[in-house]
């Protein structure tokens, strides 16, 4: 397993995630991995027993995982949300804004580069539910 880049205030889950089909079939699993074409909403009835959702990015240009992450956070999921696969430093900021709080990049990222990427932009234009106040909120206090 690659090193986990962790933004949570507790250690990342060490549980091995199972596929969505396997997860929906077995009631004792609490770590699941979803692939780009899979519907994150299928997990919504079971969120309270999930401790890790791993969202797979086989290629960085397939952006379906961003929507999956937001859908889970919008539904109140507070467990670990891990992006795995082709996670590149220039996508980290967008991924964080969509609710990812840990990463398993297939190629390790330099911590300095990650810090730089996350501090590049001081403000954001849109609300995404990540707790940051968008520019319009700052303008109208």
């Amino acid at each position, binding site marked *: 397993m690659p090193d986990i880049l962790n933004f949570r205030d507790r250690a990342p889950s060490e549980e091995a995630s199972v596929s969505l089909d396997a997860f929906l079939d077995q009631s004792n699993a609490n770590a699941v991995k979803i692939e780009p074409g899979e519907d994150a909403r299928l997990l919504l009835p079971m969120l309270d027993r999930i401790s890790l959702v791993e969202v797979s990015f086989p290629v960085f240009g397939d952006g379906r995982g961003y929507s999956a992450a937001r859908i889970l956070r919008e539904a109140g999921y507070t467990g670990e949300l891990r992006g795995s696969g082709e996670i590149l430093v220039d*996508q980290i900021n967008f991924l964080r804004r969509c609710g990812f709080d840990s990463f398993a990049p297939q190629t390790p990222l330099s911590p300095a580069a990650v810090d730089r990427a996350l501090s590049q932009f001081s403000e954001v*234009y849109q609300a995404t539910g990540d707790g940051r106040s968008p520019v319009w909120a700052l*303008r109208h206090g």
Partner: protein
Amino acid sequence: MYQYDKFDQQLVDERVAEFRDQVERRLSGELSEEHFRPLRLMNGLYLQLHAYMLRVAIPYGTLSGPQMRMLAHIARKYDRDYGHFTTRQNIQYNWIKLEETPDLLADLASVEMHAIQTSGNCIRNISSDQFAGVAADEVADPRPWAELLRQWSSFHPEFSFLPRKFKIAVIASEQDRAAMRLHDIGIQLVRNEAGELGAKFFVGGGMGRTPMIAPEIRDFVPADDLISYSEACMRVYNRYGRRDNKYKARIKILVHELGADEYRRQVEEEFAHIKTLNLDPPLAELERITALFGEPAYDTAAPDDIDLSHPGFTAWVKQNVSAHKQAGYAIVSISLKPVGGIPGDATSAQMDLMADLAERYSMDELRVTHSQNIVLPYVRKADLFDLWQQLDAAGLGSANIDLIGDIIACPGLDYCTLANARSIPLALKISEKFADPEKQRDLGELKLKISGCINACGHHHAGHIGILGVDRKGVENYQLLLGGSGAEDVSLGKITGPGFDEDGVVAALERVTDFYRKQRQDGERFLDTYRRLGMEPFKEVIYA
């Protein structure tokens, strides 16, 4: 017009710093071209046949005199002294050096401009009506809504890796000057029965290899739902748009395959959820932006008549000057289509001159049109003659707006890696063939649009007459299309039949226009005659 506040400026400055870092990593070899590609693309930087091409955003086609002067400066300092205005109201530079792009972007940022999201699979620059704010027939100025959408879509974390590029147009008139329904999302501002302003959404239009006219998805989205509703439209696309085939990845294919009703149902369901998340800015934000687009200080005593005693001036007024909502004022279109010139190109000197003229005669504001011309939106009628003389002296006086000489053409095989055929030499040949202004005026409104490949950047599907360049066994071949329109009477052109070589298509064009002249009835435009007669008789004369 809109002015950046400290937040807007800061974000653009930070983007320049980010791109500078990315370019340094590319030049040092830390970033491979494969990984740099999506980053440079989101900054409008393409690797073309001969050099890097940079596309600079001109939000909703509006810019100030100082901004136009900066575009001239960039052409002079970083390129070969000219730029190319595009069908999405942007400008492109064709001879850019990668190592100079960070400085170029810093220069742009100094006048509140950028190249953010002018390419890549993200939401692109939002286009609009070039007559926004001054058109007599609009329900409101559409640009504040476009600006609200610009900010929402800039660095949008969920929608920066869409299946494909995404283009939005916002208009506010029944008359469509922006090809609104040929966009991924077309928005028309309308008033409801209570007199409130809202947005009619059309989703799933586009050109390219599978042209589609966007169906209406919602007849009225209130101002305070605009962002939520847009977000819902985008999320359904991001999740379900096809990613298995680049050529089927635009939203038009999704909407077409699902059907408009099913797409609408999914959007409404997503919207019902998203609306609960408080993502919409308060109406005060739209009001803040609207105030920045406020009415200029019109000279209410400006005389409302024009002395039409000079024939050259009169011809120009008739063709290039449009009605303004304010008495005593006119909207001037500057044609970037001189006979024998490359459509949409302007030299640094011409850009500087247009900036000077905007400062002197048009409240320091200009517009770029989707037909690759420039507009001065606030000209006193009393100043028209002086303005025309100065334009004419600089080669900018062509009186051919919406005539056959006002050709839209993509860069084609002279620059573009995607092209199959050259567009520019053909456009030049046609403009010379139809150079006689009398002949052009006699033909009347005739929108001719040329694309050098099936991707349709030259809007050939929407031309009254369209020309599509293809590669036929290694030889450039040009297909002719008739009957398209990007206006409120939107329609897609149909291919006449087998294609031609370059001279052959010019000859076919002459046969078509000659036939129209013989067949037209009172006041009919080419398009009207075609629609009345249908394709068959035109085919007969083309292939006789």
